[in-house]
């Protein structure tokens, strides 16, 4: 339930990966020594550690085509935990090194193995592994900040804050909490010395008018092949995010999710730890089960006591009968040009009012685009010749027919080759849709403003919202071979 050390690696200004922060927990190391006995392997010094880690991650010697240590085909299972092969006097295998990486950052930690080390125990027997992962993920969120693009300046200043952050969340190697994103919490004024204990995850108390904000976002993913032998796929998952400003040490709030009549049940529900209790019927529906039609279909009540900061109350998946937009994409090779035909149909159940809707048509492994001659039934076309990319901007509305088409020819006669991709060769190509529809969900799930209950003296202001967005929404060219994307189609 402890980690022996923590390392944070990122690109320096020059581009090389280097250790920007590290912390060893000597007392945990002391325990590691007595727990492992003769099989103890000490943690090497920073530069060695970095080298070994990069080799294991396949990031070392990037100039070389094949390096035996790095590229051996022998499968090393038990990921996400890596083995570092320490050479020299303290020879041995350092295990399990956990890593998470995102953007410019790699974070690593070494959990303590608190069960007999021989034979090597499964990761699942070490609680410190899941705790280590949580700590790393928390630090990652803290360091990268809320913005999707990390700035090196912000990263630097947040790295500088780490010593005082660690004093709070992991002073001696035992992770107690994850840092709050943003600035470290200033200790808030003590509360009236009541008998109710303040939750450790609540950094202070709210004073003032009660406001509860519940946002529901559904995300739809799809793979459409336009091919009889291949079933089209789509799935939907939703997240409910709350921001609650409610007075009291441990106020009670209940949010209820409801489905329209005949709505298919919400599946795979995961809840935030601040949810106080759950009804067993809420958890029964699962996406990996065969749906038997008898499952519970709401309302879904989530009683909880909110933390101060915004949080994800719950998430779910849902099975919907049709994809929101059905597309077909056909390419034909004609001498030095490509004949393109795209049709998109908006399903009648979907509200015809988008925040935006764009279709991206990238072309890989070809020369740069020359002449683009396209006819659109609606919207406008952006041509980016350097990227070999067409962006079809459909705007806020489909026409009344709910169907749009694009047809035409592209010649690839540019002087230089365009971008390449190992997957999209020959006629393997796709249209990728990006859209957002405010105030609707595919599953029909909604949060009724009146169903949000807050047990406190003052009458709260309650705001609810919902929206549908796309992610990984692909329509593959039906005249080429499309990659398989899920096992569900074969069973």
């Amino acid at each position: 339930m402890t980690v022996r050390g923590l390392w944070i690696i990122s690109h320096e200004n020059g581009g090389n990966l280097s250790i920007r922060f590290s912390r060893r927990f000597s007392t945990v190391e002391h325990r590691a020594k007595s727990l492992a006995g003769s099989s103890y392997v000490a943690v090497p010094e920073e530069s060695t550690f970095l080298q070994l880690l990069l080799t294991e991650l396949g990031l070392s010697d990037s100039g070389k085509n094949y390096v035996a240590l790095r590229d051996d085909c022998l499968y090393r299972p038990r990921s996400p935990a890596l083995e570092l092969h320490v050479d020299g006097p303290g020879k041995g295998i350092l295990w399990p090194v956990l890593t998470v990486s995102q953007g410019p950052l790699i974070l690593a930690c070494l959990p303590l193995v608190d069960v007999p080390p021989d034979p090597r125990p499964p990761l699942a027997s070490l609680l410190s592994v899941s705790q280590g992962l949580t700590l790393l993920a928390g630090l990652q969120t803290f360091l990268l900040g809320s913005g999707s693009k990390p700035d090196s300046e912000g990263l630097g200043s947040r790295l500088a804050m780490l010593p005082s952050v660690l004093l709070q969340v992991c002073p001696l190697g035992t992770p107690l909490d994850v840092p709050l994103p943003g600035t470290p919490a200033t200790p808030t004024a003590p509360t009236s010395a009541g008998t109710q204990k303040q939750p450790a995850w609540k950094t202070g108390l709210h004073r003032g008018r009660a406001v509860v904000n519940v946002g529901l976002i559904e995300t739809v993913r799809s793979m459409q092949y336009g091919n009889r032998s291949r079933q089209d796929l789509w799935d939907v998952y939703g997240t409910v995010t709350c921001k609650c400003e409610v007075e009291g040490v441990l106020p009670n709030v209940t949010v209820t999710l409801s489905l329209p009549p005949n709505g298919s049940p919400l599946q795979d529900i995961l809840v935030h730890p601040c949810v106080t209790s759950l009804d067993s019927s809420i958890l029964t529906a699962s996406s990996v089960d065969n749906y038997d039609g008898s499952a519970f279909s709401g309302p879904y009540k989530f009683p909880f006591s909110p933390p101060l900061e915004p949080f994800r109350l719950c998430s779910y998946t849902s099975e919907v009968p049709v994809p929101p937009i059905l597309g077909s994409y056909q390419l034909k090779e004609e001498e030095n040009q490509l004949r393109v035909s795209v049709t998109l149909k908006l399903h009648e159940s979907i509200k015809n009012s988008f925040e935006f809707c764009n279709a991206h048509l990238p072309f890989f492994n070809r020369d740069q685009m020359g002449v683009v001659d396209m006819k659109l039934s609606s919207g406008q076309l952006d041509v980016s010749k350097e990227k070999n990319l067409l962006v079809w901007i459909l705007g806020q509305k489909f026409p009344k027919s709910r169907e749009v088409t694009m047809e035409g020819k592209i010649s690839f006669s540019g002087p230089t080759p365009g971008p390449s991709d190992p997957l999209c060769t020959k006629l393997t190509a796709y249209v990728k849709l990006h859209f957002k529809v405010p105030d609707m969900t595919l599953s029909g799930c909604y949060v009724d403003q009146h169903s949000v209950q807050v047990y406190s003296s003052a009458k709260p202001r309650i705001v609810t919202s919902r929206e549908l967005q796309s992610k990984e929404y692909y329509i593959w060219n039906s005249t080429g071979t499309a990659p398989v994307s899920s096992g569900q189609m074969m069973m």
Partner: protein
Amino acid sequence: MAANWAERISAFSRRPSGFLSGTTAEAFLAELLRELRDDRATYSVKILLLSPLCEHPTLLCCSDSVGEETALELMSVFAQCPPKSVQFRCHLLLALTSVLICTSCVKSHSRASLDFLDVLLQIAQDTSDIHTDGSQRPLRATACECLRELEACCPGLLSQRLELLGGLRQQETSRLHQAYAELYTLVLRNAIYQLTQETGAGAEHLKALLGGNTSAAWEADQESGLTSSKDSAILSSLILGPMGTVPTLHTGPDCKELRSVLSTLLDESYLLTPLCQATLLHRLTEVVAMVPGVPPAIFRTHLLRLLGTSEVSLLHATLLLKCAFTDSLFSSEDEAFILKRLVVLSQHPLLSTPEKLFYMDCILHFPENRPISCSDGDETLPVLLTPQLASALVPTVFNDSTTLLARFNMLSLVYLEEGEEGQGGQGLAYLYEHLSSLLSMVENGCSRELVVTFFRAAFLFLYYFCHVERYSNDLTKQLCQLYFHHTKLAPHLINLADQTQDRLSESSWSVGLLKALQRVITEAPLTQLTSHDLSRHLKMLARVAEEREIIQQSTLTFLSSIITPSSSSLCIGGDWRLGNDILGVCRRLLVHPSLDSLLTPLADVLQLLVCHYADMEIQDHARLYYTLLTTLSREKLAGVLAQGMEEGGRQVKKQSLSCLMGEGLTSTLTIQQTETAVFRLIEAPPEPRAGDINSNEVEKGPGEASASVEAYRDQFSDSSFASEITLQYQLVHINSHDCHFDQLFSIRLHFSLTDHHYEELGDISVPCLLRERPSTIVQLTLKPRKPYPTSLHASAIFTSPDGRTWHTTLPDIHVAFQQTFLPLPVPSSWGRGGTLSVFEGLWDEICSESGDSATSLFCCQLKEAALNTLVEKHFFPFLISDLSHKEEFKVLFFLPPRSHILLKVSSEEDAVHFHIATDNWELLSHINSYLLKITSLQEDTLS
């Protein structure tokens, strides 16, 4: 100064060993403590200064007594620090905890550790700030965390404080109750563990423990506290899966008190952060497992909340709960539900990749209620994981590499179990299709990472399904085509052949692949062959030639066609590397079992090389092979050539394959790495002392002291004057090594520095090193820039009797401070009088100057006899005054390039005084530790 500290501290934590080679641990520790006491330093700097003590306490405190002293120092800093510097005081507590635990002071119940424990308990109980601003809360939280760590490292330490801690936990209403709860559960868990180790302990003992009525349990506890702390078992988790056993405490069904404590803790666990909840849950799982009187059902009301959680550590703790109590807490429906949940989580779009991988690992080590086999640690599929369920986890090209491989592995296990019929067959077909689509991505030129992933997936596929010939044969075909278009994949393919051969010894797939590759290479038209392709082909053919079962005729035909001058320009080009590659193939053919049938074509190829290859060395080698082939009998030839290969066995093979340059007999061109150090350098014993050269009392040197100094200094106008020290080392074998390295020749030693205090060293050659002969003396000439102790990295290249060349690393050479001493460099004609006046001159100068000069006094208790021995033993070569002149010894150490340390040693009534004068104050700490060492040695030998 502050910036300087930041730099130094970061240099230390980056590379502690390197940092400490430039100073000593004692000196650095002393500096840190001094600065910590300095009022002028800011607290942010002081917090920085504590980090070496937190992270590497044992490097700085070399012994328990130093640890104890350091702790006392830190505690006095703590006592004097104003309460408002909360952050600094928190870090101080952490540093104290680290020092005391790591130097074993806590284990031995040293005074400082007991004092510290009192301080911590006081802070933990001090809730006086509750009605004010709560500013001391972080300090209390840190104190609790320190107490928890102390208890974790020395289990049982706080057993007797259980009631006190329980009370504190209950009272606390601020967020701090978490820290008390964590501390309390750990102490509870350890105390109960100790009770299980005592014979006859039962319900009353448990009651006494919880009720704080410790008088009954006191003595027994204290005893066991000491004994069990030696045993690491108490540190281990008690939840070990089906094979683990848990020590139990037999209380009968009546343990109301414990039950109520546990219920309260569980009910309030909701108020803890998920990480702490998970820890608490795990500790309580252990407690309930140890006390069968408490039914596991106590957890039941919390299960739904835990099973629905999105927090990985909470769900993990729940899985461990299941592992501990199986069907006494979880029904079979629960089990099915949890497994489905894990499958869902393993591919959930909202979770991070490491979390998903972790859940997949949990599926492969699923704690089943009724496991069929008790395979420890091995991956096994839970019975309930049907192909239908697993199909949610099939690998796809959209997965990242690690996910892809983990899924590939899991699904392979699933389909292997199902067999080739029905769903298993379909699944297998899918996996193969997936492998093919990866292959086509490699074909289309994907990233390096994806290439490696493909080969790992291919290995996995073969590992499980090599026996399914329709796939494995097709894979061979596809790989051959792949190689044909991408010869740069040669090392990957060789690696795949090696690993499958290694892991699947009964399968002949690997030989089949090599055979097919041989065909691809030898049957392709030569016209478009680039030299890159050729080199890779030759490496591949060399690997093919290692297989006894593969017929090699076509290889020879290929060799002969590429070197026949009429059809190729290879010979005229005379590329040395390609020549070697060709010889590499030839060499393997020379030991091939079918050599008899290869004789004539092989001889022809070698002959062609001898006559036409435009590189002299290649010609020579080819000639040697030719001679061997035509003059030696087959058996002898095999004997001569196989030697190198078979002795080293697999290692040589691997080596030659992986670096793709290695080649048996051309070993003079290949340097191999020894696995461990073969020999080392140890300090040679001093030579027998030459007669006292300076017996000449006649004063020939310059007269007056100052003049002497001036004349002495003039010598340094030649910058090379007395600038080097020469150290004698013995080169000796390291024992217990194979006889392979008994005789070594042409050893070339190479040294590299670990700091900037010395000039680079030249290499040293030693003709031979034979185990049975006396060791060789090696003279190391060091040219200091600053005369500090240092370490040198040393490596060597040498030749073993079988003609192979090796590279080896020697253990580091440590140059002690005293090894940099030289006698005063004056002409021998100056005699004692001359040196004495230089001494006096320098002494006066140092005492009157400031600058870099410094004087100091070192005292110690030594009897007269002991002092004489010490002087004779350690100072004799540096003695300036006469040995018989016992009232005051004058000693001068000259340290190149320009430093001097002068000693006047005299016995005073209470102690021996070493008056020290030096023109380089930075040397003081070194001379101090040197004197400390030799005088304490002297004391030891006499006492």
